[in-house]
């Protein structure tokens, strides 16, 4: 095949690894669920109600919050959630 122009790759030349989703749990009873508030206004209103509903169904709920919605969650916070909880719900608001 005749070839054309050769250029240098402008990208990072890396591909994100694809991760398999965990199987959906049959029941939330007995699970510890992290509710991650991204710190947008009124996110707490939504999460308060979620906490009520989840607790009613037998889950244990732990609340976490990002320092600011404008930046990714700090590594320590992600680690804390991963070690203390089995499920996580990240919530937006406004």
């Amino acid at each position: 095949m005749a070839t054309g122009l050769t250029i240098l790759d402008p990208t990072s030349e890396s591909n994100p690894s694809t991760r398999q989703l965990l199987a959906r749990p049959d029941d939330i009873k007995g699970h510890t669920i992290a509710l991650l508030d991204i710190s947008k206004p009124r996110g707490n209103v939504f999460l308060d109600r979620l906490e009520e509903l989840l607790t009613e169904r037998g889950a244990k709920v732990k609340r976490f919050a990002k320092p600011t919605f404008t930046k990714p969650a700090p590594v320590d916070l992600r680690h804390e959630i991963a070690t203390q909880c089995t499920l996580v719900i990240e919530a937006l608001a406004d």
Partner: protein
Amino acid sequence: MSTTAPLLPNGFVVIVKHECATCQMVEPVLAAIAASGAPLTVYTQDNPDFPESVPHTLDSTLAVSWHYDIETVPTLLVIENGVEVGRTFGWSQAEWQRITGIDSLGADLPVTRPGCGSMSVDPDRVDALRAAFTDSPVISRHIEFSSAEDEFEAMYARGWTDGLPVIPPTRERVLRMLTGTTRHPQDIVAIAPPDLVELTVEKIAINAVMAGCLPEYMPWVIAALEAVCNDQFNMHGVLATTMPVGPVIICNGPGTRAIGMNSGINAFGQGNRANNTIGRAVQLTIRNVGGGRPGEVDRATHGNPGKISFCFAEDEENSPFTSLATERGVPPGQNAVTVFAGEGPRCVVDQLARTPEELTESLAACLLTVHHPKLVIGFDAILTLSPDHGRVYAEAGWSREKLLAEITERTLRPGADLVRGAQGMAEGVPPHLRDSTLPKFRAGGLLLTYAGGGAGLFSSIVAGWANGAIGSDPVTRIVGS
């Protein structure tokens, strides 16, 4: 092609080209050197039959000319044990006689004649020669298009453009771009958001080629990327926000004139290569290396056209004020960039004010509308005065500090006017601030700059994004080499 210099034979080595009249003139001289019995090697750059009177070798790849830095033909070299120990270029009777030791050499020729440009420094050839002969540590993957592919369409299809065509980043062009900086191609400039990948000088150079930069813009592009890729500026958040902001780059220092930046007529607009391609290179780098693309991490509701490029220089020569860079601690005479998370510019019209007080009232009234007349403190802004508005302050002797203090005084608002629900508008500040007096901008939140020109009794406002630790702070960086 070899990246090491070819070994030259001992004795005299002369590099010529047929196209050069001086080379033709010295042909009898070459014959005389050969006749003297001295070891002579002649390399010819263009015509394999020239010079007829002496044996010669065609420097077909220009390897000899490139590696021995031949800028002018004819050049006479003296080689001993494979090492150059003498050189003259062009025709100088005295020099050629001294170097060869032949007293009568070229006695019938004029005393001096300048030579001609070597083909190895021909601007049309030099990039390819650099790419062929330079052992450059450029390590990016090579991507070969098929001959049936249109490279411009192919680059668009691969998602590497901002919607406008980009220059294909061939190795030749990237190596030329790298001549604009003293930094090593594999130096890591920053960790590029949102994918948090190591951003090398080489990857910046590739994207700068695509953006249309000249090599001399490289230090500015590097400094701007250093300025946006950190927690303080928070490029990740600037991308991810639904607000219409992008990095606005304000350039200061004598280098802005050296690279031909526009700080005058249409400073924010189209038409100037440096202004438009420096900002574009920053955005293409964030897109291609960092992975920040609209609809993915970039969630802007509307965005703004300045997200292709929004970069300008302050008109420091004519400004009545100290420059933004000086204000932000940059020593005078240094080049610097300041990055600001901003939306597009809006115009302040006041064609009637003749006193600084009147004009400040107008500026304050317009600044109060930044993002919403009832929202305060949380957003910064850039105010850019034009020469016609700046003159009002210059004639009255107002300093930067005086003007900013007067604006601050005129942008204080009673909390009762700003609380949620006041004036029939739900938007506003929380109710507990009802009895406060609130400034429109946080301390230092209004960045005063001076640009634009010829005529026009206008100023310009660029509104920012959420400021401080929860959003973005302006960042200033010195431009290196």
